[in-house]
């Protein structure tokens, strides 16, 4: 479990490089959160069953009808390395996602933080769904980290004879009725493109990709091969969770969120992992928390508005790192 398996020769070298640096002393990283886009007016109960709207209810758990869900991407600078956790999705003429708003190209959002797309050295995807593993081709120098279990899970669903279990969307209207879906050919071609160009590391379980920056498997916490990322910072350790941590309130209140291929026990174990690593729930970084970029999600409150109304937050700065907040 505690090893990185290189997929091809060049990738194997990258993997050895990872192991080589793992013994070095951990340094604090600087961390920002970027809103890749926002899914508007999602029924709260569809996102978190415990938060289903009850008309006329005075309970704060059930008196909100719809929520806007950000698609959060982590930007992590550790020394000279620039790491993305998730890579959002790419709005184009053929993929508009009606009902979403505030999409902005990730390279342009990075520019606002003073980085170039070419500076990105690593991309860790929490899982391979289209809205978390897009834009990969826009970061030509980045090495992709994906769990082998994620690829195996996709292939299993791909070849399962019952169309209700399918990696591609066989039912219009999302994956609630075909819960293994969410992997369009284009997204998988992008992942494959990284493998073909020798820019992918296929991870088996846990891995340290930089000193103190650790991938933790969270298999079936959202998809077959979901993975978390632990990052050391000046405010303590953070754990990014992608859709294993779709909702920060979910982690705080122990409620499941965004069930897809989710084994809810595994999702709770992923929550517990964050409590154990960080000492609580405050430093767990959620992918779609509606309270993101507000005082109600304190980790993300130091925020501002970027391109096309998308938001950004400065979470932690390493010693000597300058603030990027305008």
């Amino acid at each position, binding site marked *: 479990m505690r090893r990185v398996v290189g997929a091809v020769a060049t990738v194997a070298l990258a993997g050895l490089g990872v192991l080589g640096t793992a013994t070095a002393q951990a340094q604090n990283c600087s961390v920002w959160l970027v809103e890749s886009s926002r899914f508007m007016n999602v029924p709260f109960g569809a996102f978190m069953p415990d938060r289903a709207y009850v008309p006329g209810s005075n309970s704060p758990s059930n008196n909100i009808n719809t929520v806007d869900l950000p698609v959060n991407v982590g930007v992590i600078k550790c020394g000279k390395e620039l790491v993305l956790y998730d890579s959002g999705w790419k709005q184009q003429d053929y*993929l508009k996602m009606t009902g979403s708003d505030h999409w902005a190209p990730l390279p342009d959002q990075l520019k606002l933080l003073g980085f170039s797309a070419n500076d990105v050295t690593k991309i860790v995807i929490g899982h391979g769904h289209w809205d978390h593993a897009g834009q990969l081709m826009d970061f030509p120098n980045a090495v992709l980290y994906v769990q082998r279990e994620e690829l195996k899970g996709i292939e299993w669903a791909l070849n399962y004879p019952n169309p209700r279990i399918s990696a591609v969307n066989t039912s219009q209207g*999302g*994956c609630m009725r075909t819960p293994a879906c969410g992997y*369009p050919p284009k997204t998988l071609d992008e992942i494959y493109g990284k493998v073909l160009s020798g820019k992918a590391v296929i991870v088996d379980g846990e891995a340290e990709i930089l000193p103190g920056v650790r991938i933790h498997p969270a298999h079936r916490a959202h998809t077959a091969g979901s993975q978390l990322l632990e990052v050391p910072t000046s405010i303590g350790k953070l754990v990014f969770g992608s859709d294993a941590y779709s909702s920060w309130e979910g982690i705080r209140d122990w409620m499941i969120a965004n069930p897809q291929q989710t084994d809810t026990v595994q999702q709770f174990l992923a929550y517990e992992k964050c409590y154990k690593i960080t000492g609580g729930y405050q430093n767990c970084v959620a992918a779609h928390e509606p309270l993101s970029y507000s005082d109600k999600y304190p980790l993300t409150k130091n925020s501002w508005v970027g391109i096309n109304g998308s938001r950004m937050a400065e979470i932690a700065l390493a010693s000597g790192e300058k603030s990027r907040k305008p």
Partner: protein
Amino acid sequence: MSALASAHGSPRFGFKQIAMGVLLLGLGAIAALAMVREGRHAAAPAQNAAAVGGAFTGHTERPALSPAEETYAAELWPIHQQTKTSAVQMTFAGLAYKLGDIDKAAVKERVSPLTKMFRDARAQAGRLQVPPSLEKQHQRYLAALKQYEDASVEMVKVARDGKDEHLVAAQKMSYAASEDSLRVGDALWPGEYKPN
């Protein structure tokens, strides 16, 4: 002006003038009311869009498909499902090869049947009744199927000489085909992909 002149010319108003005045005032009030109401209705959608956050910039509400278009979309959907599955199977054959799980001969074994799948899908799609309004999308979809087919033919060549260049070329074709099938999907099945 003539009515004014007339009014100035004669300070006394008869029943007819008073009745006409009341009538004109009434018509004016109705017209004003109608304009106000019209203005409110025109403003309503923008107000709602702002209140709900709206779709992303530049995306306007699309008209519903006509019955003929609906029929075409429904008949193409099962072909599209199979095509997507075959496309991802092709991608995974390449992945499995590059990850060392299969050898180059197995790439041929896995991908050759997909060439026929794409060809058959194109023939099947070509037989559909296409409404003139969707002719462009139809041609684009047929071209995407041809591109997938070409990608599979290219990919199989790796079994012959083991050169990665075939895989790279095939991946580019497959990627372009997936973009085109998404373009068609955006017109026919806008709810194909949802947040997850």
